[in-house]
């Protein structure tokens, strides 16, 4: 009959019936019972070993077994141990031992159950691997690990010398739990350690946290704090643990990236940049690969960087606003900004952010970064298209107004004159009306000719441009205006180099030059002989023809927006500027060029014609 300290006696008969290999050990490491299969496995007789120290059965393994039994009694579940047959004389087969706490009906740990299972190759490898890792970890960090022990009843905290060193205090420093807490950085770190200790005492939960603390001399370091509660008579009486300075490993920040993806399994799988930021400190905790691709910086560039600085560098003083939005709504509205990455590429970024529960309950911000550069480009193209469509629409409306206005004027004149003619019997008067009707008819033809020219420009946009010698074209035009020049004593000064060519449609170039030169003559100063100077400037994309005159000039402040517009009087007065410049502008634009004017009243005008080189 067996007795446990905390429970009334109970039967262990069930162990005889179970089909697996099990052995039960009490809190003093004494063997209580074993299943028949276990006994067969190890070729032992229950009667001879019952009540013996379990460890004594496996003297070669005593150290390893002892440690595992202790942990198990502390409440740690499923501790694995690989049993090598060659080390012992009881069994011929390798096996895996699973250590688990044995609890009574009240949840008190009253011993350890070890289940022995045959080993598979993968399990073996797994265990080997863990072992290697463990050994490596131990080796690399052994010098920096310190242990501590907190007695709940006495509220005393004992530190090993290494812990003193980690906290940066003298060896005679007397720690208390409260003092220890205050070394941890205010905010998440301190909250986490306090909560971990409380949970360990109250619900037996062990912890393993990476935290930041400030040493006595002010240096901030990363530590790995591990702790677990110790039970005595089913009550937690002590909390023991270790503390390790892991600043060096954190500095090449591998720790966070390893832990974070577990928390956010899609972190690396989404097709846009992600960053996790500590809400309280604003430090960037982690970024995903997509983010590093976007920025062209290494991950290390961002880790520990302050997010506020990052934001304010791109959108002035935006961080405060974003923080307020996060506080109020738990997220902020998408923000767009231009980011210059490591490769000096400007990319348009759309950023959104949401508050999330981080590891160990701290508040983090999860930000998404989307490259919307191509989107922005499309948007811009669309806007341009809309703008040009709007302009075309406006032109059409102007055109409609103009056509209607001009034709109506002629119709009115015709009807007026015909009425007079009808009422008139006098021969001389009648012939006078007839003459007026002819001139009205001429005007109408002139108007229609003008309208046709406009339509022609608009419909010949797809014709091929040719490389034309500017001087040759000019020569033809000069012949045409020779009469006009002679009449006004005008003079053309040609400074265009012989070799200059422009890409243009021949008919347009002729029309443009003719229009420009006749305008300069038409709008000459009354007291000056007209002088027209033609010259060339080469620009990157354009060959620019300047035509400068000493004529009346144009009050651009007053007429600036009308100079190249459709002026409604063009049909009526031969001296009016009207349609000519409108057609010239359209012709230049049809050839992917442009036209500008500089002028002051009474100080002449300079028209510049930009011929596109392509």
């Amino acid at each position, binding site marked *: 009959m067996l007795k446990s300290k905390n429970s009334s006696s109970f039967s262990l008969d069930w162990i005889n019936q179970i089909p697996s290999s099990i052995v039960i050990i009490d809190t003093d490491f004494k063997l209580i019972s074993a299943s028949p299969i276990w006994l067969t496995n190890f070729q032992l007789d229950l009667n001879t070993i019952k009540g013996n120290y379990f460890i004594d059965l496996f003297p070669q393994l005593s150290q390893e077994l002892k440690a595992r039994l202790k942990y198990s009694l502390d409440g740690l579940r499923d501790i694995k141990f690989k049993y090598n047959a060659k080390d012992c004389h009881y069994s011929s087969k390798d096996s895996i031992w699973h250590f688990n706490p044995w609890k009574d009906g009240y949840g008190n740990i009253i011993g350890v159950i070890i289940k022995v299972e045959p080993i598979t190759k993968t399990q073996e490898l797994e265990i080997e691997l863990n072992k290697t890792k463990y050994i490596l970890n131990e080796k690399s960090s052994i010098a920096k690990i310190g242990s501590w022990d907190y007695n709940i009843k006495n509220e005393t905290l004992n530190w090993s010398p290494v812990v003193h060193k980690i906290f940066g205090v003298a060896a005679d420093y007397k720690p208390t739990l409260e003092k220890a807490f205050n070394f941890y950085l205010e905010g998440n770190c301190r909250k986490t350690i306090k909560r971990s200790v409380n949970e360990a005492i109250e619900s037996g939960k062990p912890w393993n946290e990476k935290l930041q603390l400030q040493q006595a001399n002010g240096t901030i370091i990363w530590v790995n704090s591990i702790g677990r509660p110790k039970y005595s008579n089913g009550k937690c009486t002590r909390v023991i643990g270790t503390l390790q300075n892991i600043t060096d490993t954190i500095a090449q920040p591998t720790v966070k990236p390893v832990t974070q993806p577990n928390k956010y399994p899609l972190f690396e799988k989404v097709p846009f940049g992600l960053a996790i930021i500590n809400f309280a400190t604003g430090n960037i905790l982690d970024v995903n690969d997509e983010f590093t691709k976007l920025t062209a910086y290494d991950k290390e560039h961002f880790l520990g960087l302050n997010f506020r600085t990052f934001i304010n560098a791109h959108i002035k003083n935006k961080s405060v606003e974003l923080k307020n939005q996060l506080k109020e709504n738990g997220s902020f509205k998408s923000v767009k900004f231009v980011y210059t990455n490591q490769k000096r590429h400007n990319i348009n970024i759309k950023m959104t952010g949401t508050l999330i529960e981080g590891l160990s309950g701290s508040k983090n911000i999860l930000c998404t970064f989307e490259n919307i550069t191509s989107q922005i480009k499309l948007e811009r193209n669309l806007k341009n298209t809309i703008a040009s469509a709007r302009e075309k629409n406006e032109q059409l409306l102007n055109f409609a107004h103009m056509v209607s206005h001009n034709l*109506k004027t002629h119709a*009115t*004149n015709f009807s007026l004159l015909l009425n*007079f003619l009808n009422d008139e019997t006098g021969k001389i008067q009648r012939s006078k009306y007839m003459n*007026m009707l002819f*001139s009205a008819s001429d005007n109408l033809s002139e108007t229609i000719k003008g309208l046709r020219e406009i339509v022609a420009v608009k419909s010949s946009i797809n014709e091929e441009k040719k490389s034309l010698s500017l001087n040759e074209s000019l020569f033809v035009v000069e012949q045409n205006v020779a009469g006009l020049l002679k009449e006004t004593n005008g003079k053309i000064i040609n400074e265009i180099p012989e070799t200059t060519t422009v890409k243009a449609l021949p008919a347009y170039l002729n029309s443009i030059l003719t229009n420009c030169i006749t305008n300069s003559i038409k709008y000459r100063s009354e007291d000056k002989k007209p002088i027209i100077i033609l010259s060339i400037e080469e620009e990157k994309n354009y060959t620019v023809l300047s035509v400068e005159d000493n004529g009346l000039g144009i009050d651009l402040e007053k007429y600036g927006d009308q100079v190249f517009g459709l002026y*409604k*009087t063009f049909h*009526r007065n031969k001296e009016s500027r009207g349609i000519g410049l409108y057609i010239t502008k359209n012709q230049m634009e049809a050839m992917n060029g442009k036209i500008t004017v500089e002028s002051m009243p009474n100080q002449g005008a300079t028209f510049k014609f930009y011929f596109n080189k392509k």
Partner: protein
Amino acid sequence: MKKISDITIIDDDAITVFGLRKLISSSIECKSVESYGNGKIALDAMIHIFNNDQRIPQIIFLDINMPIMDGWEFLDAFIKIPIKDKIRINIVTSSIDPFDKKQWEYYKSKSHHLITFNQKPIDRNKITEITQVA
């Protein structure tokens, strides 16, 4: 009906001027009808008349689309001349551009003169109606 002494036509279209003159002479008794080819010539004449304390024409027919100075520019300058009498200004146009209608409303509200907006053509009845002293 009060007798009209002076009428002015400001229009660059010879046929329109001729037609208006003919309509006026056949339906209204009037001492003199002057005409100007654009706003600038007309404005210079008006300023000259005003400065010499002569009488500003009681009725002005004003075209809008003219070279050098158009009807609106003329009107803008004309209403700034401190003329005490109320002048009748008949705008005569074939424009259907809503902008011109707006301009008319703007100047109508800004001046103490009587400004009317008339679409071409103007017939005999219309001319009698709009050729009355303001």
